[in-house]
């Protein structure tokens, strides 16, 4: 006599994303949009590197150092105008009573964090270009100094976000801080016009709006701008998502701490 054991298909383990509350579940379209932007960013960055390092010719005056120009203005564009500009607009929309929503606060926070990373890249790439060109790693030039001040101001913004407070209080406080810091953005932009600086003037967005770069060099520079903008958008989407998840648990920090302690206890008991 044989006994048959009922066989039931094992249930597939639910992924963490499937266990999220309805308000935090991302639509398939959003997930795919983020992935496609990420892939497009990777491809365009690779193309920029290939064109910048191997295809474009060396410059008559700067030689191979011109290749850094395909990267440096792009990261500066993202940090100053896209990231910090967006942070200022989002902060303004948060402070405006009709549009007040924590969405704008979260967007500003995401833009500032990504912007700080790009700001660091701007200062480093500029410094590496400056050493063989000007003979120094750093000069207390108006544009360089104001860009460093911008970094410090937005680092202050990120520190302010860590100060414990009610979400609305924190959002309002940070929105004012972002607007205060963003005043430095036009100062950085016009510094090469208002003061006699070591840093060269605008190559593309100059007063006559006639770019002083041509041919394959111009196309590579343009591609660099597109590539780094895509990198920024991808990072912004991912960082915004982290902010949404953090805010969901923000009010229940004790709950999270208890859960982590319980997990630690369970692991220690094994």
């Amino acid at each position, binding site marked *: 006599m044989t006994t048959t054991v009922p066989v039931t298909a094992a249930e597939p383990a639910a992924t*963490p*994303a*499937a*266990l*999220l*509350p309805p308000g*935090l579940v991302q639509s398939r379209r959003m997930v795919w949009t983020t992935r496609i932007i990420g892939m497009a960013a990777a491809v365009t*960055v690779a193309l920029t*590197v290939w064109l*910048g*390092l191997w295809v474009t010719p060396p410059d008559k005056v700067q030689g*191979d*150092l011109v*290749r*850094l120009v395909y*990267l*440096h203005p792009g*990261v500066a564009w993202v940090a100053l105008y896209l990231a910090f500009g967006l942070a200022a607009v989002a902060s303004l929309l948060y402070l405006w009573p009709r549009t007040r929503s924590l969405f704008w606060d979260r967007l500003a926070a995401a833009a500032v964090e990504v912007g700080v*990373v790009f700001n*660091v*890249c701007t200062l*480093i*790439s500029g410094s*590496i*270009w400056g*050493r*063989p060109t000007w003979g120094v790693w750093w000069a207390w030039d108006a544009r360089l100094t104001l860009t460093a001040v911008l970094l410090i101001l937005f680092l202050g913004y990120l520190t302010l976000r860590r100060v414990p407070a009610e979400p609305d209080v924190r959002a309002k406080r940070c929105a004012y801080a972002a607007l205060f810091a963003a005043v430095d953005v036009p100062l950085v932009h016009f510094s090469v016009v208002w003061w006699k600086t070591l840093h060269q003037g605008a190559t593309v967005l100059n007063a006559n709006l006639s770019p002083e770069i041509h041919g394959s060099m111009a196309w590579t520079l343009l591609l660099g701008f597109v590539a780094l903008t895509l*990198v920024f958008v*991808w*990072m912004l989407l*991912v*960082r915004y*998502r*982290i902010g949404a*998840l*953090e805010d*969901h*648990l923000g009010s*229940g920090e004790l*709950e*999270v701490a208890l*859960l982590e302690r319980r*997990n630690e206890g369970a692991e220690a008991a094994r």
Partner: protein
Amino acid sequence: MKYVDAGYGIVLGILFLYGVQLVWRRRRWTRLVARVEASRPPADPGTADR
């Protein structure tokens, strides 16, 4: 070329590492929220309408 190589290496390296860190943070927070939600006791249906 050493300055150019260093510039590309450092800038792209920073962006790459930050990108990886973002993905890791997103995964960690997703897991944490899912765990907290799973550990929450279900809402009492008798008190739902009160």
